[in-house]
């Protein structure tokens, strides 16, 4: 076959593949935004209204309980996970640990990353049963934090790995301690670290399986740390399997809220990363 025919065929192939992926993505996001937007425009208050006593059956009230549940579960989980992830990544990168040890840990983190979230959910459920507790906001936080931890650690580890070694050497060369040097390395890798944390947050806020058995799939407002709660993904599942057409339309509204939240987060991460990239060695020029 002629080289230029090959080139043209390849061009068609890559364009078709990209069009397919982008098309499906636009369809999903588009339908959600259009139908969710329509539902929200019809009655924007459903986002801010607590559910009525027979919400799932009759659609009275709104789904504020799930919005708050998501925030109260994923927010603290992200903070806990972030602290653990950054600490672990620093440990793995610095002279605190040997290369072989950090390779081994990274392998386990990859396994954890690929573990289906339902496994974490069931694991935490086992703990709940073992300690004789019941499903609650607290255990939702625990489950989501465990779920986010490998994702954030791997991202942060990669980011620190790609920070120039000379930053570390420079800091040590100025008489900085290990801790001061680690802070400098994290700063140099900040765009990547932020991307990892936001990624963890986005995955956490979108996950249903981890919270399903741990937070309690509640249909009421979250009442306390050790009271049952629910999150948006679970709510969407419940709504879309409802017999009530109005509740089913609320599923689109909830999806809309979720998708917009994730998009906003990704936008925020780009903004922050860009801001810090100006400081990263060689970030802009080379």
């Amino acid at each position, binding site marked *: 076959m002629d080289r230029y025919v090959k080139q043209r065929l390849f061009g068609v192939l890559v364009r078709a593949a990209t069009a397919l992926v982008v098309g499906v993505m636009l369809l999903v996001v588009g339908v959600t935004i259009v139908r969710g937007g329509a539902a929200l425009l019809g009655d924007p208050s459903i986002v801010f209204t607590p559910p009525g006593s027979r919400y799932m059956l009759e659609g009275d009230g709104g789904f504020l309980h799930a919005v708050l549940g998501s925030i109260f579960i994923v927010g603290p989980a992200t903070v806990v996970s972030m602290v653990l992830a950054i600490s672990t990544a620093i440990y793995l990168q*610095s*002279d605190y640990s*040997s*290369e072989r040890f950090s390779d081994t840990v990274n392998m386990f983190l990859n396994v954890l990353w690929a573990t289906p979230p339902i496994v974490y959910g069931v694991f935490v459920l086992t703990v709940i049963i073992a300690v004789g507790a019941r499903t609650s906001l607290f255990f939702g936080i625990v489950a989501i934090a465990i779920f986010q931890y490998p994702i954030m650690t791997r991202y942060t580890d990669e980011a620190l790995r790609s920070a*120039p070694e*000379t*930053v*570390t*050497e*420079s*800091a*040590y*060369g*100025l*008489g*900085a*301690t290990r801790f*001061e040097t680690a802070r*400098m390395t994290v*700063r*140099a890798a*900040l765009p990547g670290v932020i991307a990892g944390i936001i990624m963890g947050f986005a995955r956490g806020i979108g996950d249903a399986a981890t919270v399903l058995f741990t937070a309690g799939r509640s249909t009421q407002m979250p009442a306390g740390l050790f009271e049952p709660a629910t999150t948006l993904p679970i709510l969407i599942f419940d709504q879309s399997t409802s017999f009530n057409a109005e509740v089913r339309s609320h599923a689109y509204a909830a999806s809309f809220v979720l998708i917009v939240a994730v998009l906003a987060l990704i936008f925020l991460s780009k903004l922050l990363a860009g801001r*810090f990239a*100006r*400081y*990263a*060695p*060689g*970030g*802009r*020029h080379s």
Partner: protein
Amino acid sequence: MSQQIALRTDDLAVTYTGNRNVEALKGVDVEFPENRLTAIIGPSGCGKSTLLKSLNRLHDIQSNVDVSGDVLLEGRSIYDTDEPAPEIRRRIGYVPQTPTPLPLSIYENVAYGVKIHGDYESKSDLDDLVESYLRKVNLWEEVRDRLETPAAELSTGQIQRLCLARSLAVEPDVLLCDEVTSALDPISAERVEETLESLKTEYTIVMVTHSMDQARRLADEVVFLYLGELVESNDTRSFFENPQRERTRSFVRGHTIAETDGDETNENDAEAESEPADEPVPAER
């Protein structure tokens, strides 16, 4: 001429103990006189950077490195001491080969070392320090209007001078420079050289370089390493004009040194020595 010795090594040996053992330095004794610029030269992989990094315990931060022997700063060991390594590195500064801005503003880059050591009284004190060190490396006029912008936005040549200012700001006794001009374009390199030239009477500088010309231009003393061993060290003039060792002679002439001893061809010097390089002939001074 008698010179105070700022830094000296005592049978210093460094071995990398990774997958295979590599003896990077094999027992080196070398002296670095005070307020002079000493250039460490030698072919690639001869242990130049290894020597430099062992002079301020920078190998401590890597695993798989064994250091034996000793380094003495003003007569006192920097390895066998209770003083924490950061305090030693503060007295023996290090500028890496690649111009590396810390992820901070220009101002904060210079202020960083001063801040972590708490060596200042007030903000205005710090401002003065930053200005004086930026002047010292001839960078002040170029950056005075944009001290708060990220240092990473400077040109590589400017960054390298900033690195010098940053290292000087912690007031080290000795400054170690690892091929500080090798990543720069000729004009930036010249400016960094000018800066080093102006600093060398005030500071003890140890500089690794792969450029013979640079060593000849800048250095007061030259240390020649080959395959992890010290071949010759002398003041620059004697080193280049009257090398004591055959290896040095052929290296100075730009010859590639033969891998095995006594393999130098095309040499008809009467006093050509072909003994191994580990017994340096006493330098004539």
